[in-house]
């Protein structure tokens, strides 16, 4: 392939990725309920979103779950990465495999398996069940992100610290965390987006009293397409966009 055809091929794919999103965002400012023709610029749909008190509480639910799940998953995912990297222990290979399987396994399988777990334990669905599910599916992503950063570390640092009398917890707190913090923050941010955007798992493990944004969007879309949904989706997309860019900048930071 010559340069020109390569360039046009790449451009075509990028257009495929971004044109639908751009159209979605542009039409969230269109001053018409049904038509796709341009009827002038308006903030109306965004004002309606802000005024919607139900939606406000749903957004707060999503934020709370996202922040808590990302924080818990980051702590446990980082511990997992460090443990897998530094120690030999019984079941290490199994843990490696399990992390890998959790990443590739279809969401729906995890969704129904957790639903069966909660139902067997007679836990009613709501905030806690949703939070535990989100923590669980975020852990592997943090573990992988932090682990790949750890492979770039010089193992002699740990030996040196140990020779100087540092205990493992001190090494973790004073050496590993400071060296890995860009990856840890990236892991937190990616977990937060995963939690904010998850549809399939949440669909099975949340109760009617605890609604979250993606499920709200899903049920709104099923009822019909409105400019408010365009506005809401545009807001969600912009948040994710920002988080992903920051997390990628973190991951590219030089050690």
């Amino acid at each position, binding site marked *: 392939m010559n340069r020109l055809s390569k360039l046009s091929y790449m451009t075509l794919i990028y257009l495929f*990725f971004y044109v639908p999103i751009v*159209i979605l965002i542009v039409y969230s400012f269109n001053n018409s309920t049904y038509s796709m023709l341009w009827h002038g610029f308006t903030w109306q749909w965004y004002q309606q979103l802000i005024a919607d008190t139900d939606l406000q509480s749903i957004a707060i639910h999503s934020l709370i779950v996202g922040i808590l799940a990302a924080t818990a998953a980051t702590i446990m995912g980082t511990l997992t990465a460090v443990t897998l990297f530094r120690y030999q222990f019984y079941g290490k290979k199994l843990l490696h495999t399990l992390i890998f399987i959790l990443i590739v396994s279809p969401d729906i399988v995890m969704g129904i398996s957790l639903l*069966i777990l909660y139902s067997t334990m007679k836990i009613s669905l709501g905030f806690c069940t949703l939070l535990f599910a989100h923590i669980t599916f975020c852990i592997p992503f943090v573990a992988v992100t932090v682990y790949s950063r750890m492979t770039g570390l010089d193992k002699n640092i740990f030996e040196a610290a140990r020779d100087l009398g540092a205990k493992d*917890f001190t090494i973790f707190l004073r050496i590993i965390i400071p060296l890995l913090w860009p990856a840890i923050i990236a892991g937190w941010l990616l977990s937060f987006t995963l939690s904010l955007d998850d549809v*399939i798992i949440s669909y099975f493990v949340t109760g009617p009293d605890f609604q979250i944004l993606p499920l709200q969007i899903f049920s709104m*879309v099923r009822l019909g*397409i409105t400019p408010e949904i365009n506005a809401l989706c545009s807001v969600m997309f912009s948040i*994710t966009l920002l988080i992903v860019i920051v997390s*990628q900048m973190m991951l590219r930071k030089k050690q």
Partner: protein
Amino acid sequence: MRQINIFKKISVITIWLWLGFFALVPNVLVMITSMLQQGDNELVRLQLTLINYFELFDTIYVRIFVHSIWLAGLCTFLCLIVGYPFAYILARTHHRYKGLLLLLVIIPFWTSSLIRSYAIVTILKAKGIINSLFIWLGIIHQPLQLLYSGSAVVVGLVYSLLPFMILPLYANIEKLDMRLIDAARDLGATKLTVFRKVILPLTMPGIIAGIMLVFLPAMSMFYIPDLLGGAKTLLVGNLIENQFLAARNWPMGSTVSIILTLLMGLMLLVYWRSSTKINKEQQELI
């Protein structure tokens, strides 16, 4: 001198307790549930049976499986033939824009596929941009029915899952040792032979990883047929959702989910075999 390492102990125990309870136990429960039957008054009747697995051979289930494999397979195939050249060009760009170009693929990888599918809905709907454009251009006079068809579902799936094909392929092609390609060319191989005998076998793990990351979600993302396909198009994911939330037949839903898990296991096995094979061969070469 061997002191008891408390930090290590606490970490290992915490991780195993959490993943054991929220990942291993639930899957064992699914396996058990798949061998129970729907109860009359309660959710399940506690009596082991394999009847659900035999029921899978019922025409309704077979039809959904075949249809779903066909749709997911088509989507995977499209992602592969579109994504492979893209990943190859991206990995071979010696550009200062490479970071930005990669970021532009990573963004759709992480953004909600629900929102992205919704974007497709707004484009394909009767009063959507495509119909409006065609009517304005005078190509058609009545809006076309683009939404609520099998092809709309395939478009939605490809749109959502293409980044999941590109990124593993990119990671694999990026690691490719260019000297091997040069060596093959020096020894007189044509471009096609180099691709067939060198590049393709070496990027096989990436291809399989990509197939796995596209095919399995394509079978199970039930909201895409819900939004784009109307009620006509059913995926295995819709079947599971239906059995759990509408029909309340959890044992049957679990059985279908076990089949999906087995399919994943099979693909993982192929993936591991191909990547260890290539590692071994490369070590022998060096």
